[in-house]
């Protein structure tokens, strides 16, 4: 994937977060934060293997994109791309850590967030002991799950042939 196309992916994923109300536009400047430092910090405490199901896992630099938004619920965020051998992005994983408030751990809050993602009504599924919300995007399968303050948002290309195995790999890694 070219750099330009990848930037579009970053923008799309952050747009999903924006639409879910995870971040908010800064005041008075067309959504650009006034501070020099980004309000949402990069989430460094996320550990993923170099490869999953044959897909190369790479952490993306989203610092400049984060600088353009001001946080509401999320204080740290990270974005990973999972690429096949031909460099095509087969999936993206966004990891958001919510602020340390108890209500952000509540199922009702999580459901509110999930309801704003995707283009179809989210369905709660059980994977192991974890609830995984499933919805769809534009030619994408979207899976969302929570672990304490951390939300995982996995968007998988519609033509990727092992989406459930990929979700399982990531969900069980976090358990």
């Amino acid at each position, binding site marked *: 994937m070219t750099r330009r196309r990848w930037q579009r992916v970053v923008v799309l994923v952050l747009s999903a977060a924006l639409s879910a109300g995870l971040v908010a536009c800064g005041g008075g400047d067309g959504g650009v934060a006034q501070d020099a430092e980004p309000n949402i910090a990069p989430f460094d405490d996320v550990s993923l293997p170099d490869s999953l199901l*044959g897909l190369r896992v790479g952490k993306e630099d989203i610092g400049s994109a984060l600088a353009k938004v001001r946080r509401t619920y999320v204080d740290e965020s990270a974005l990973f791309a999972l690429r096949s051998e031909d460099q095509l992005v087969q999936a993206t994983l966004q990891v958001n850590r919510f602020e340390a408030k108890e209500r952000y751990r509540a199922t009702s809050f999580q459901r509110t967030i999930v309801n704003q993602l995707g283009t179809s009504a989210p*369905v709660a*599924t059980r*994977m*192991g002991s974890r609830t995984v919300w499933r919805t769809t995007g534009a030619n994408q399968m979207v899976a969302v799950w929570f672990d304490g303050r951390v939300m995982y948002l996995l968007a998988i290309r519609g033509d990727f*042939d*092992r989406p*459930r*195995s990929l979700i*399982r790999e990531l969900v069980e890694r976090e358990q």
Partner: protein
Amino acid sequence: MTKRAVVVTTLALMLGITGPACGKNPGEPADAVRAALRRTASEPRRFSYTEVTSERTVAVDGVVEDDYRYKVAVSVDDAAAYDEVARDDALAVRFAAPELIGSVSLASAAPSAAVQDALRTRRWVTDPVGAPDLTGAAALTRPPGEDPVLDGLTLAAYVSKAIGEAESVRRFNPEAIDYIAREDRFPKPEDGSGVTRFDLRPPTIPAPGGVRAGGLPGLAHLRRMSVYVKGGVVTNVLEDIDVGSRLDRLLRLVDVKAPPRASRVQRAQLAVAALNRQRASQGSALIRIRRMSAEFIDVGRSSTVELPGETITGSLNVIRNRGRTPKAATTTTAPSQPQPQP
């Protein structure tokens, strides 16, 4: 009429008036059943699902690890038919009765020679990307009976839908004024068993004017369903799709004159056949007379579903609602890591 009888009748009428409205309120029986269904479906479990029609009896016995992993054994008329194991994206199938392959196959798809040979010789075939999606809309909109495995696996969603189509849901009460014992073919909960039975009341069959306007009776009108709940989880579901006491009304609606010596069963078949002709002309799904029962066992007891060891790898998209892109078959001696498609 005695004064006491008048009071009882008046109270019964008042209850009858307020009954349907109460069914819409939170905390009512419908909500209790839905909550039990959600709880049951979210837990690992074993289940036994049976569908009886005039043509055959199909039974599915299964183990569900979670929404992405299950294994089932299917029998037809008490004879082993086929086994199926799904583990995330992978699906394995083996036919114990190869003569039944045609009954679950798509005419438009042709298996590879290796897959065909394996299925005919009662060997396992594993499709690395062939598992059905149990949570997708397609899995929940099939007509019942088309795919008994998916019917058994997605029963909670089917019952939830039936609740939405019912006039109301009521706790079983043999002393209710409108309880008709001769029409109740489902067992009553034993005293002290802790089991609560909930009955779905079908909507009234449309009046002739409604039928002329296109409002033909559907599955919901002919359904008798009871859900048994214990300890907050569903233990049993029983369903009869039949005309029951509504036979005469249905015959009038579909304008069918049954032969004078026709038995009740024959008259019911005539009525449903005529109804289905009208439904088909409207493009509506046909109604199958059937009896369904399901039992949930060991709800909450964890279990592990593994793919079979010795298997042929290939596409199972020849089977209805299964498989994706065809692949070349290769022999393996252990569950192979599925290969990504190009």
